[in-house]
């Protein structure tokens, strides 16, 4: 029960950035609701999986591929290209903090000199960035890689 409350709170907080960034990408008004639902579902699914000790990369892959297939359904239904919903929906899962920590660590390595602690931060965050991002994009591309294989979706 407590977990359910946490998931609902997580979903609500994830819907806000999905809509916010969808507006930066100028997603049409009628599609904003799909971005909100997609963002909430994908992020809360990842939250749930990570709660059961699934690694963040695998949890991201599962969440983003479910978003990819959900986007496929919506896109066929509304005749709208898939990136319109899917990219905004996965924005809450983008490893932005990891990416910035990596580069700030690199800047620090240059200005303060080499140290093992900072190198450790750079390596760990850099690898997290790469693998989470790979999982995100691969998950979204999965329907067109597996099912459509070069044919147009809409």
């Amino acid at each position, binding site marked *: 029960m407590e977990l359910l409350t946490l998931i609902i709170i*997580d979903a609500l*907080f*994830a819907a*806000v*950035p999905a*809509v*916010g*960034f*969808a*507006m*930066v*990408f*100028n*997603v*049409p008004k009628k*599609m904003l609701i799909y971005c909100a639902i997609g963002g909430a579902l994908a992020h809360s699914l990842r939250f749930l999986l990570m709660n059961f000790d699934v690694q963040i990369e695998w949890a991201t892959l599962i969440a983003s591929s479910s978003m990819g297939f959900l986007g496929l359904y919506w896109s066929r239904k509304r*005749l*709208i*290209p898939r*990136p*319109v919903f899917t*990219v905004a929906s*996965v*924005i*809450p899962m*983008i490893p*932005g*903090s990891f*990416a*910035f*920590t990596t*580069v*700030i*660590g*690199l*800047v*620090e390595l240059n200005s303060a000199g080499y140290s093992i602690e*900072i190198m450790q*931060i750079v390596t760990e965050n850099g690898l997290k960035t790469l693998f989470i*991002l*790979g999982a*995100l*994009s*691969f998950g*979204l*591309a999965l329907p*067109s*890689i597996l099912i459509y294989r070069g044919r*147009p979706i*809409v």
Partner: protein
Amino acid sequence: MKLTHEAQTELTRIAVKAGQILHQHGAESRLVEQTTQRIGVALGAQSIELSVSSDAIVITSLFEGNCVTTTRRCYDRGINMQMVCDVLRICVMLEKQLLDAAQVKERLARLKPYKYNRWLVVVMIGFSCASFSHFFGGDWPVYITTFFASAGAMILRQELAHRHHNPFVNFALSAFVATSIASIGVIYQFGDKPQIALAASVLLLVPGFPLINAVSDILKGHISTGIARWVFATMLTISVSIGIVTSMTLTGVSGWLSP
């Protein structure tokens, strides 16, 4: 169906216009390629061959041994999904034969990018980054600090983008503003862990769309455009980090590398 040379030239121009609009407004290369080919074939060409690179498209239409080739530069106009939707809708209507060549041309020329009210976007981005601060474990005071820091940065980002400033300069300055406002919260110890606001307030500057497009281009075989997008996104990330580091050096607040 017979196609005169003039008609073939016209068809090529219409197809390249559609591809150019898609490319300029941030569609992935596969979508640019497919849509251009579909429009060309629907208008009567036997096949459309095109090469999509990071800043231009080259297209050739073939009809009974006749080739017409044309090139368009694609300057970045900023991501606009509404334009992508509209071009695709025109393509689908053309394939269902609801439109003819002249109508397609007229509709493509009439497309105008829709933009949300800028203050609405500022407020929404403020709330978005504030929600990220919740994911990092921040409390309500941190939420408020993050809101103002990222909203301030978004105002600057829109203003500079409106004046066509270089995106790298734009992102570095916006990151500087976001970090400077958020560090006020750290200096006055506003909330439990005010450092969270430093990390959350710059997340509006993550180049999420270019990064996802980069990987998906590479996955779908457009390696060179994928690499170009990846490098662009990496450069944006570096600019943002430079902005953050400059602000932290000036204010003496640190919060990124300490675990």
